[in-house]
């Protein structure tokens, strides 16, 4: 494929207001059965530029297992209750809150900072946004992380979850304005729709 011409990607479009009967599915947010050993709750709120929680966003997470293995197992849409597939989807409720039951991701390489990959879709959001949720604990790994160390401290904070008293994680998304979440461009061409 080395000599093939690069094709231009198809543009994205907003997920719109009516995904609610199409994208959610049974146990979509349960990467593990709630209450099973090692399971944690991951939750947060999606806010707009006015600081209001928005009721029409949907999140996807994709993560390694607790050992840091990237699993390649089918069964995310029809969960058997035992297989960890690493993928989950959660539409926010009327109060803008999403919830997942999952595990703490392990580092995929020794010493690496562990994180969960996230894609966000919303009515009013023209294209999906990518970001990451880092676990808060391993300070040294966080300090050495290539992405985090390329950010100033104020912005870096937006990517690190809070550890809850019950062992769960809380991580909010701010689409715009003060404390705006860092969103990622993996293409490096600047055509991903940066603010104009």
């Amino acid at each position: 494929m080395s000599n093939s011409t690069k094709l231009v990607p198809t543009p994205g479009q907003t997920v719109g207001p009516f995904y609610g009967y199409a994208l959610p599915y049974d146990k979509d947010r349960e990467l593990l059965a709630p209450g099973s050993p090692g399971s944690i709750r991951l939750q947060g709120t999606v806010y707009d530029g006015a600081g209001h929680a928005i009721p029409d966003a949907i999140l996807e997470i994709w993560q390694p297992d607790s050992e840091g293995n990237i699993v390649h197992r089918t069964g995310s849409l029809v969960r058997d209750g035992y297989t960890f597939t690493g993928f989950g989807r959660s539409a926010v409720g009327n109060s803008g809150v999403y919830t997942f039951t999952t595990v703490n991701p392990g580092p995929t390489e020794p010493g690496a900072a562990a994180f969960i990959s996230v894609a966000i879709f919303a009515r009013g959001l023209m294209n999906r946004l990518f970001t990451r949720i880092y676990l808060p604990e391993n300070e040294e790994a966080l300090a050495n992380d290539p992405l985090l160390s390329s950010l100033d401290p104020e912005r870096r904070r937006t990517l690190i979850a809070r550890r809850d008293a019950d062992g769960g994680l809380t991580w909010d998304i701010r689409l715009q304005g003060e404390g705006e979440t860092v969103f990622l461009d993996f293409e490096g061409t600047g055509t991903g729709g940066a603010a104009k």
Partner: protein
Amino acid sequence: MPEDVNLATYNADALTEDLSDAVPATPAAAPAEKPRVETQQDLSAEIKALGDAYARALKDGAAPETQPRLDFPPYRSSLLRHPTKSLHHADPETIELYSPAFGHQDVHALESDLTIQHNGEPQGERIIVAGRVLDGDGRPVAGQLVEIWQANSSGRYIHKRDQHPAPLDPNFTGVGRCITGPDGSYRFTTIKPGAYPWKNHLNAWRPAHIHFSLFGTEFTQRIVTQMYFPGDQLFPLDPIYQSIVDQDARDRLVATYDHDLTQPEWALGYNWDIILTGSKRTWTENEALGAEGDDHE
């Protein structure tokens, strides 16, 4: 927050039910003058100004834009929902270089036919929508999930927030899924969706479209988009379609009528190929041969 955001318009994208539990009312103390109703003319003028500015930029040597603008004011709901900071460049790492795997355990073959989900035939024009999912290097995306959803033939969604006074169709839900073949191919049988009104501005109508959700071989290729039908007169009027300011890029969302796909005395055929971004991973030989998806299970 931008001062001039008209919250009534911002929140009224769909023909919605009351969202008052989610959206605080505007302070009663502010006797704000009633905002003037925005017409299609107003919106078209805004869209044209942005298009003209883009044309000038192109002429001055700017690179063509290939994606929608996140900040596109004519789509009022985007005003408070677009990041104001540039997206931060990152090299995808580990998990991001792989994708969730879906297989025939996840999706039944019959889910690709949206016309057989009920006891009777849905109303409207039966169509076949088929094409291929490729990555930016032209490689087929095999064994991956494609999800679609759409309005029925009269432009109505089965969604509690859709208040368009057009008939629901008891024989049409408007949701389908399939897993791509080894060559990246997908195929749906459905009904041509109708155009529908929304509340972005007075007399705003969305061109007929099917929502598509796609996964690649890497999570960074994830995309949700909309497929349109050729020759729609609503294209120039629609802020969502026009948020892609480049004509060539916009055209990539429009299917092609394909008479070879059309089935005699049965259904009209539309072809639409979807290109994801290029792969960032060094592929093993097995992967290059298409060993993704079901084979892992």
